[in-house]
């Protein structure tokens, strides 16, 4: 019904909007029905300017954007309508105005043409109220959010103009449907159809073409396209190879510049050098002498060396304190200890050799008794002072024994009957290590001992492995036995050669039968044949159960490798050695090893070699070592110290090898020499103890002793160096005293004397147990072993002690050398004086007359002299003067 007109109004309103001024609002000849877009209770109205003036609501003058409301009286409007009838702008709302209940109607100036016209009339009083007094909405709105949401109640539908849209879009019939009826004669239905060809080109419009055409609507050029873009860092790697033209040195070889000899000569001659030397020398001499006078850089306080802690303890610290004493009722009764040795590796274990304390006669008488009670070597441990830990059975009294330095389970000993004995304690070492406590062990004992063994006697007894052949050993008791260091070995002629196995394989024994013998513990070349022969001859030797067969190749057939005799130098006869000392040799191939101990430790094979497999190599295969010192010191029964070479020399006459004559022999001691020991700090300084005194020697200085003690009242029976202090050594006396000598303190007396026991001291051996504990093992004649603790003062060396001792020894050597020189000079002088005296005596006696004549002559001369003097002095007597005139 309503045609689409609002569009035109909107467009016109739009144009009006553009104008927006006081232009007169052109009246619109459209029916002012409330178009879509405004609520029902207002009516958009157009007012002409005349009407505006009349009602006083001129646009932008009476009513403005800020105050668009104008109340118009109803009566005025009615009057206007009556007066102007159709021309009145209010004619459209005539009915509404007449129906308006109130007196005043609100006219609102719609400046923005929101409802389509310039003004609108509010139709209902409620709306008027609402517009004039807009309710406060702001506060209620915010508080409304906190309110509980209430479901909206159904309200009446308010038309907002949407039904017009729907009406517009809906299809409605605009006219009645037309009906057509088509008919055909009935008889034409169902007849045959005749098809014929028809050319489309014949008739116009015969065909309708529907040609394809390019629709421009579809040829759209894509002006935009969506695509994703991601930014990434731009990576680029490239390489180039350039020619390295920069040269640099790979290596430089140079030698220092020098002058040729002529140039040097010329320079030396030059005057400038002379001047230089002259100017420079005083300064240099002054500085040199300054250094001589005093060392300004020496810190005296630190050079003192000993800290404050030395001075806190008093007397107690200086004494040798008895630490422990070992004796055993069963084994030590009536016996004396001949030799002591500390175990090299197991700390706290010491072995003593017990020998009968009887004279030779008694030995013979009691020989049967000795067979039943074999002599023993006892092993003591610190933790048990009453029972020895291990016993070694000896074939006879052992006077000397030694642990093998490379294998402490091998012990070699020398017996009274001249035999050399070997023990192997490797199976019983566990007793010494203290891992198995010594008490109550029979049940757990899996090692079966000899059946002769007393079961209740818990101390295990080890039999010797091997003894030397009876006829080829020494003829007298063996007094000293030592292992050759493992750095070299000795051939049959005494030449030292290198030792391929890093273990000690040879030992030396000496005995008062005037011989020193070298023994080898390996299988010798001659051995198998003799052994075989022996086996055929004898019955199988009864080997005790439990004896290790380490040395079965040597047993009973052991012969010495080399026998060195000691013929006397001047007279016929031989020296009878008691003790000896040879110089140790440190192998050159081990560089950097300073001490023997370190050397030994690194060389000690993890697996002890099987000695029965080792063969004495032929002398040709081994490299001979020329720098081994084959000379050694021997102390004899008569108190002599002999310095000899063990190498065998070829005798020119017979071509046989025999021992050389000793190089030197000194008769210093008056009785048996019981100790010949090298200092652990200086390998060429030897201490010899014997008789009533002791002496210190330096190898190489063959004029005499460096130091000789004054003879003491007691026999010196034992001696040893201190292992930690170069200047200290201990001397044991026959009255049971131990004297501590300190070379740097005083040399005429011992520093300390301690009485340990009442019988003579037979052996002293020191041992470093730990850095704080140093022990001295002292054995006496009664079979008791005393362990003394060395006080700190005696084992702690001062910082330069070695240097001072060296200096002392050097001064002593100088003194000795000087003394010998002077002695020679005196000897010569004495000879000269004697010769002179002799000459004097042999001259003829002058006669008395001759003497008188001589006197007369002298007297006359004297008289003449007297007169001449008196004459010159004018004192002559008068008679003479007158004579002259």
């Amino acid at each position, binding site marked *: 019904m309503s045609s689409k007109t609002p569009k035109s109004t909107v467009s016109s309103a739009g144009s009006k909007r553009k104008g927006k001024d006081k232009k007169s609002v052109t009246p619109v000849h459209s029916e002012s029905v409330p178009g879509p877009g405004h609520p029902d209770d207002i009516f958009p109205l157009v007012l002409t300017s005349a009407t505006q003036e009349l009602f006083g609501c001129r646009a932008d003058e009476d009513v403005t954007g800020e105050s668009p409301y104008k109340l118009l009286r109803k009566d005025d409007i009615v009057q206007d309508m009556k007066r102007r009838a159709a021309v009145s702008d209010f004619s459209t709302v005539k009915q509404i105005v007449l129906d308006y209940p109130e007196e005043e109607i609100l006219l609102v100036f719609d400046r923005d043409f929101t409802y389509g016209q310039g003004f609108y009339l509010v139709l209902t009083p409620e709306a008027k109220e609402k517009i004039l007094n807009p309710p406060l909405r702001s506060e209620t709105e915010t508080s409304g959010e906190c309110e509980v949401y209430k479901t909206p109640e159904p309200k009446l539908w308010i038309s907002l103009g949407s039904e017009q849209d729907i009406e517009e879009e809906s299809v409605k019939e605009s006219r009645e449907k037309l009906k057509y009826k088509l008919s055909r004669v009935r008889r034409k239905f169902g007849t045959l159809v005749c098809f014929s060809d028809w050319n489309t080109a014949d008739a116009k419009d015969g065909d309708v073409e529907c040609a394809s055409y390019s629709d421009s609507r579809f040829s759209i050029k894509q002006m935009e396209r969506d695509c994703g873009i991601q930014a990434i860092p731009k990576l680029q790697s490239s390489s180039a190879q350039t020619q390295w033209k920069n040269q640099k040195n790979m290596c430089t070889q140079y030698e*220092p510049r020098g002058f040729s000899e002529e140039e040097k000569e010329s320079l030396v001659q030059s005057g400038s050098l002379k001047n*230089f030397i002259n100017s420079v*020398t005083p*300064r*240099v001499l002054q500085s040199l002498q300054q250094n001589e006078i005093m*060392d300004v850089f020496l810190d005296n306080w630190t050079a003192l060396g000993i800290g404050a802690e030395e001075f806190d303890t008093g007397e107690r610290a200086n004494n040798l304190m008895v630490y422990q004493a070992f004796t055993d009722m069963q084994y030590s009764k009536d016996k004396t200890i001949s030799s002591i040795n500390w175990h090299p590796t197991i700390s706290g274990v010491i072995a003593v050799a017990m020998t009968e304390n009887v004279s030779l006669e008694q030995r013979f008488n009691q020989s049967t008794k000795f067979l039943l009670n074999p002599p023993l070597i006892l092993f003591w441990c610190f933790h048990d002072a009453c029972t020895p830990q291990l016993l070694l059975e000896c074939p006879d009294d052992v006077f000397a024994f030694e642990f093998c330095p490379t294998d402490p389970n091998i012990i070699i000993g020398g017996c009274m009957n001249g035999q050399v004995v070997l023990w192997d304690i490797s199976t019983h070492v566990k007793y010494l290590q203290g891992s198995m406590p010594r008490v109550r062990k029979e049940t757990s004992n899996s090692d079966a001992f000899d059946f002769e063994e007393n079961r209740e006697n818990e101390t295990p007894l080890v039999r010797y492995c091997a003894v030397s052949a009876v006829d080829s050993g020494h003829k007298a008791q063996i007094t000293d036995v030592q292992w050759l260091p493992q750095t070299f070995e000795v051939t049959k002629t005494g030449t030292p050669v290198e030792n391929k196995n890093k273990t000690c394989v040879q030992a030396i024994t000496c005995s008062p039968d005037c011989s020193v013998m070298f023994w080898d513990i390996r299988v010798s070349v001659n051995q198998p044949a003799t052994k075989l022969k022996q086996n055929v001859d004898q019955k199988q030797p009864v080997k005790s159960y439990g004896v290790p067969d380490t040395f079965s190749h040597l047993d009973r057939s052991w012969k010495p490798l080399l026998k060195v005799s000691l013929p006397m130098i001047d007279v016929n006869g031989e020296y009878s050695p008691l003790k000896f000392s040879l110089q140790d040799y440190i192998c050159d191939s081990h560089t950097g090893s300073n001490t023997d101990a370190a050397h030994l430790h690194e060389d000690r094979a993890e697996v002890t070699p099987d000695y029965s497999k080792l063969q004495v190599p032929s002398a040709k295969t081994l490299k001979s070592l020329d720098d081994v010192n084959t000379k050694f010191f021997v102390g004899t029964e008569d108190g002599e110290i002999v310095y000899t070479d063990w190498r065998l020399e070829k005798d020119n006459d017979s071509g046989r090898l025999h021992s050389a004559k000793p190089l030197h022999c000194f008769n210093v001691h008056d009785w048996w020499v019981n100790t010949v020991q090298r200092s652990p700090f200086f390998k060429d300084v030897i201490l010899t103890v014997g008789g009533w005194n002791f002496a210190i020697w330096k190898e190489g200085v063959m004029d005499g002793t460096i130091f000789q003690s004054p003879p003491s009242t007691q026999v010196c029976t034992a001696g040893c160096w201190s292992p930690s202090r170069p200047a200290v050594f201990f001397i044991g006396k026959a009255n049971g005293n131990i004297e501590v000598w300190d070379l740097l303190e005083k040399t005429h007396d011992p520093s300390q004397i301690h009485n340990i026991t009442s019988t003579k001291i037979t052996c002293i051996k020191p041992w470093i147990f730990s850095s704080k504990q140093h022990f001295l093992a002292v054995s006496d004649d009664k079979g008791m072993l005393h362990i003394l603790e060395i006080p700190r003062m005696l084992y702690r060396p001062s910082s330069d002690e070695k240097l001072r001792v060296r200096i002392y020894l050097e001064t002593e050597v100088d003194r000795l050398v000087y003394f010998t020189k002077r002695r020679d000079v005196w000897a010569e002088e004495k000879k000269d004086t004697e010769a002179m005296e002799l000459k004097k005596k042999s001259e003829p006696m002058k006669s008395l007359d001759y003497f008188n004549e001589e006197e007369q002559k002298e007297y006359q001369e004297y008289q003449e002299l007297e007169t001449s003097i008196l004459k010159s002095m004018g004192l002559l007597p008068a008679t003479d003067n007158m004579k002259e005139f």
Partner: protein
Amino acid sequence: MAEVEETLKRIQSQKGVQGIIIVNSEGIPIKTTMDNSSTVQYVGLIHQLVMKARSTLRDLDPQNDLTFLRIRSKKNEIMIAPDKDYFLIVIQNPSD
């Protein structure tokens, strides 16, 4: 020549003197009492040290100059007496 020898003998006779070297200003040894290799080594090293010491002193005070240099070490003392054209190195082992 004899004078030089005599003076060197005097220095050598002092207690503890281990060696004497006379070096020219370029560092080439002229006369020495030690073996060649030690001499070369000493000279090469000490020459640089003397140059450095001298330049240090001259930098600090241009009117100053080095008259004597003593290097005391644990084992010995090296004394260097420089001059315009030569310098003398003496190595002494103070015995105390």
